[in-house]
């Protein structure tokens, strides 16, 4: 190596440097990315495996396999089944009401080209940035002022607030993709506003509305912060029941319930992906 000229010495050094650059980049950036990938998926898999444990504790890896905790969940846990039904009822009602409200709001925002429509975009993000617990407490204080006691109805109203921004965002996104020429065509062919909406705009925006409704439904189903403040004693929701189960008892039924939730969620996601191209709207 000593008889090489200065120039080739420099290029050899540069080559080594370039190789080092490439290697370290692949090692660190590629490694972190792959680690993140494993981290993203593995906890869900671990819960699924744990839910089939034969042990009475949350030991991992489980010493043996059985479906006893699923049986315990189904046959001997009326309070969990009840909480699931409450959650389903609330989520369905909140999704329906927020979808109607948000779709109407989205159409109004899109129709008005005014500056406040842009401001609305920031407002949309606000429920995602505001601490949900503060929102729950604020709603409770509002209901107190109106002399409305907490009930199923207040719970549904609170959850509607949670769902609303999700539907609004996806509907706005799908409305923005509709070529305004379609609407003009429909109008110039003599179609009224209602006909244009039901036959032209709605079919085109349907996917976005459905995707938002689904995301809103899942957000409602998983919400704790609002439910803590707005539910009465009879309407305990599933995530709060689960929280209690995990925190106080380290109950293995929580694993079985989680298993059911994961399986249901994944099935619904695959279904919604087929129907609406859900992943385009998850942003």
């Amino acid at each position: 190596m000593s008889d090489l000229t200065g120039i080739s010495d420099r290029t050899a050094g540069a080559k080594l440097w370039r190789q080092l650059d490439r290697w370290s980049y692949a090692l660190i950036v590629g490694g972190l990315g792959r680690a993140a990938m494993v981290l993203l998926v593995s906890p869900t898999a671990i819960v699924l495996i744990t839910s089939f444990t034969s042990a009475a504790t949350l030991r991992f890896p489980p010493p043996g396999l059985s479906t006893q905790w699923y049986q315990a969940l189904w046959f001997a846990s009326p309070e969990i089944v009840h909480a699931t039904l409450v959650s389903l009822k609330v989520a369905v009602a909140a999704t329906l009401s927020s979808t109607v409200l948000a779709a109407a709001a989205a159409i109004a925002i899109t129709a008005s080209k005014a500056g406040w429509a842009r401001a609305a975009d920031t407002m949309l993000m606000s429920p995602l940035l505001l601490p949900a617990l503060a929102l729950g407490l604020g709603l409770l204080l509002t209901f107190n002022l109106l002399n409305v006691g907490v009930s199923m109805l207040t719970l549904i109203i609170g959850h509607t607030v949670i769902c609303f921004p999700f539907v609004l965002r996806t509907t706005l996104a799908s409305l923005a993709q509709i070529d305004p020429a379609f609407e003009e065509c429909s109008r110039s062919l003599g179609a009224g506003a209602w006909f244009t909406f039901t036959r032209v705009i709605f079919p085109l925006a349907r996917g976005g509305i459905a995707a938002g409704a689904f995301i809103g439904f899942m957000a409602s189903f998983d919400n704790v912060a609002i439910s803590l403040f707005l539910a009465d004693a009879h309407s305990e929701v599933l995530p709060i029941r689960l929280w209690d189960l995990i925190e106080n008892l380290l109950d293995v039924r929580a694993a079985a319930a989680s298993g059911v939730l994961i399986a249901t969620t994944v099935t619904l996601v695959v279904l919604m992906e087929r129907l609406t191209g859900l992943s385009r709207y998850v942003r």
Partner: protein
Amino acid sequence: MFVALPVVMLLAASVSDHGAFTLSNFERFFSDGLSVPVLGRTLLLGLETAAVTLMLGYPLALLFVGASPGFQKLLILLIISAVVRTFAWVVILGRQGLINETLLVLGLTKGPIALLYTEPMLVVTLAQIELPIMTLPIISALAAIDPALREASAALEAGRWRTLFQVVLPLSLPGVIAGLLLVFAAACSALVTQSIVGGGRLLFMPLYIYQQGIQGQNWPFAAAISIILLMSVLAVVAMLNMLGRLATRHLHV
């Protein structure tokens, strides 16, 4: 309307004492010696989580942008209940959990070590739960970068690292900022995860609000804590936004 009214109500409740105006709830918060550290710890938790999530989320976004679009759909996992994903970490971190059993088998420890109810593990848990929220906006930002810019950088003999830090990262900064904001805000108000993985001894603002409100029936003070949390989170969000704007000012894209 839906959002504004509750916030106004919170503000009203926090400054009223049977109809009369008072700042005593805020005075109490800043003078009782207990509340301010809770606030500080909560904001720190949010910042630490945002930083860890970025460290993992950015390389993950790079990986996803290079991979087939079908692969990216894995990120929809974020729709799975946060309570369930928190529970996963109880299984991983518990006394008989994955980490402790592994350490035991490898002979690295004699008995189980305490992982649950520690702050570093809470940060890791929150980072994992918020990972998709960080990665999605970064993917959008990365996908919008003209690949010719990266090729140009390589053609000009810039190494991988230099291309990353001087071309790709600055251009994707809006996505990074959006991710940081969302993760920070989510981590600061993640009541269930904070309570399950953080345990009773680590008190953060959301549980504090819950304790004072529902358990203590001290609604005005709970409202004051909510307002302070809300303002602090929004202040950090505004600051991050401003930093982002300063950093991207010279870009013309």
